[in-house]
């Protein structure tokens, strides 16, 4: 049985590499179309022709873009992410701290939103058709329909400005004690939980409802099982596949899609770094960030598939 999972993981790794290459080439093609280059943007108003030429020389931007991309790719094999054009610092150092921040925010949000969404989804499915079920559905539709920067700005205004309970900014480097940590992460985590859990609730509810209509659940009923036992013991294990998939999709949003939350809370994450990189046409930085987003997405999808397989003995 174990070989089942092993060759799935290997097959999945192969596709990950292929997908990663496709993404990197697509991003390279897009960035090479961007007008202007790092030198002219850095010089801004002082960009006289000879100043730009001098700086390009200093940053060795003169050799063709495809060559620079391949050199970056080659460096990648040795684990070297190249040096940023804008400030000559190694990309790894630039990304390092921010990657940890993004992972921390994503981690905490996951710990909060996934259990919340699953319980709401499952209980809504169990009490299908009741008032509780309809309120959960209406609420999740409502939350999905509000733009996230509205949610974030409202949260800041209410909690930070008027009530002064929580800081408006998430200056992560001042978190010494646990209470600091909670205070600093409270707002961005609440906003993100709002944004991603709505979708998970809807998916979980649909998956559980579908498994509730299967013959083996009816069999459990005919064995005298209570409603909760039917859902938890029989419906949920078989609904795990689609649920885990929905969770993976929502979590992949946490890596790259949170640019707006990062902007409003001034949270130094990778999404904002990518925006800066595009603004300064910093090729190695753009490629590294794109790689991280792609890897994050693919790892989550693979994990989802593995969990789905583990939960279903027929595939194991």
């Amino acid at each position: 049985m174990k070989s089942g999972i092993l060759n799935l993981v290997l097959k999945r790794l192969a596709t990950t590499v292929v997908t990663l290459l496709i993404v990197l080439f697509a991003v390279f093609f897009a960035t090479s179309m961007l007008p202007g280059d790092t030198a002219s943007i850095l010089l801004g108003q002082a960009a006289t022709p000879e100043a730009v030429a001098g700086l390009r020389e200093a940053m060795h931007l003169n050799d063709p873009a495809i060559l620079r991309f391949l050199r970056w790719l080659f460096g990648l094999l040795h684990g070297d992410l190249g040096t940023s054009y804008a400030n000559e610092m190694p990309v790894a150092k630039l990304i390092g701290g921010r990657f940890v921040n993004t992972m921390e925010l994503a981690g905490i949000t996951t710990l909060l939103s996934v259990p919340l969404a699953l319980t709401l989804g499952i209980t809504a499915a169990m009490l299908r058709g009741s008032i509780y079920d309809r309120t959960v559905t209406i609420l999740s539709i409502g939350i999905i329909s509000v733009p996230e920067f509205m949610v974030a700005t409202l949260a800041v205004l209410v909690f930070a400005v008027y009530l002064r309970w929580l800081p408006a900014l998430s200056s992560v480097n001042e978190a010494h004690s646990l209470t600091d940590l909670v205070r600093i992460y409270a707002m961005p985590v609440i906003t993100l939980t709002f944004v991603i859990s709505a979708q998970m609730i809807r998916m979980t509810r649909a998956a559980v409802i579908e498994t509730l209509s299967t013959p083996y659940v009816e069999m459990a009923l005919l064995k005298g099982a209570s409603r909760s036992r039917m859902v938890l013991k029989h419906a949920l294990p078989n609904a795990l596949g689609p649920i885990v998939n929905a969770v993976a999709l929502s979590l992949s949003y946490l890596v790259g899609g949170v640019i707006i939350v990062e902007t409003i809370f001034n949270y130094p994450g990778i999404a904002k770094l990518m925006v800066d990189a595009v603004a300064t046409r910093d090729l190695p930085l753009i490629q590294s960030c794109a790689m991280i987003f792609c890897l994050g997405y693919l790892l989550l999808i693979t994990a989802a598939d593995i969990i789905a397989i583990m939960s279903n003995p027929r595939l194991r």
Partner: protein
Amino acid sequence: MTDKITNWTSADDAMVENAIRRGASRRELLKMLLAGGAAFAASSMVLGRATNAVAATPVSGGTFKAAGWSSSTADTLDPAKASLSTDYVRCCSLYNRLTFLDKDGVTQMELAESFDSKDAKTWTVKLRKGVTFHDGKDLTADDVVFSMKRHLDPTVGSKVAKIAAQMTGFKAVDKSTVEITLADPNADLPTILALHHFMIVQDGTTDFSKGNGTGAFVLQTFEPGVRSVVTKNKNYWKSGKPHLDSFEFIAISDDSARVNALLSGDINFAASINPRSMKLLDSQQGFELSKTTSGNYTDLNIRLDMDPGKKADFVAGMKYLVNREQIVKSALRGLGEVGNDQPVSPANVFHNPDVKPKAFDPDKAKFHFQKVGLLGQSIPVVASDAATSSIDMAVIIQAAGAEIGMKLDVQRVPSDGYWDNYWLKAPIHFGNINPRPTPDILFSLLYASNAPWNESQYKSPKFDKLLVEARGLLDQAKRKEIYGQMQSMVSEEAGTIIPAYISNVDALSSKVKGLEANPLGGMMGYAMAEYLWLEA
């Protein structure tokens, strides 16, 4: 608190006094001031001055946290490469310049003890004694020569390479004297060297991420695009300074997020707040606004060498179409002063108040446009967020044009790459000019026939002759007279319309003291860290 406010009359003063006596609330006061037409909104400023006239003595200690408005991975501690406010603030806290401009725009000595020259061509600079770098090494003439020479090396990519080009020779006469020779005489050299880019770095420095300078603070941490923290330089050569123990500077690009951060107490200082957030700040207690008219302006350039700028009537018509009061009121929310289409701002000693701008007169504009048959055609006007408030100005002019049947098509383009692709190139486009200490720099940079940034391609041999003549003059009165005449020429003949000088407004908590205006820009010309202190 700016005490040098150009259009503040004693009548306004009396009005405020009795208002306070009647117990007028802050909101009523603001309404009264706005209604009264005084183009001056920051009532708290006035309140600040009227109530605690006697400034408290400075208190030392405390950590000060401020937020600028833009940062990216391109942040740097190399003064030559500094490109925006975030870099200037950090450089000012870590390094010193030979000279600096005080709140009245007068050049004061800093690292230099004296500047003297007979013919304004070769200058001898005496350095101050007993000044050490953070790493303990003494300041010598070699450091100054190295700091000046590197601007000429193209691989450094210095922002002031063009201005430095006129300094042809640097020589360290002895350990504490430097001799600078210029290509041609320029009486403004001491003022030029007050620019932030001419900060003095240690001889031979290549890695600027250490921030090793002679400034009031020593670098603790620097993460480009995120934050920087500097701590008090114990053996700073200016005795008794700085008052603060540590100073953290971050950047929050979203305007409302920056204001909210200030209101929630996360930061003590929010630089350059958006006029729209003014109302919010006004309704909160414990916060002040500091307004400085520094000479920064956004201008509408009509290239005289391209269609439709070629037709003089079109330019004249456009000058009548610009409703300057409405721009100051709506686009700048009252935080600015009406401009007269010439670059020298009221904050500059050489400002010529007699040059009057063309009044807003749509009918005259219509007459001019009809004369050249341009009425009804769609004329593209390029604007972008890169030039502050240019979009709001464009929309106001567009609306005014629509009234008289003039179709101005406002094209908003993304800010990155704006200076490279649209500025100086599009037939009609907006620009934004940062403050410069001297009219000579402004005119030679923007209006001379061979000026690198001649936005409207204004070519006038008479103007060029006056420029060179004024540059070498040491007699200040004569220079003021010539510069006044040049200002009226530019206002009349050039294709650049400067509707208003933008005031820079910073918001700060009431506990922050010691902030003064400065012609070089907001945050006391970016050098506030050295002078501020925090009340208990």
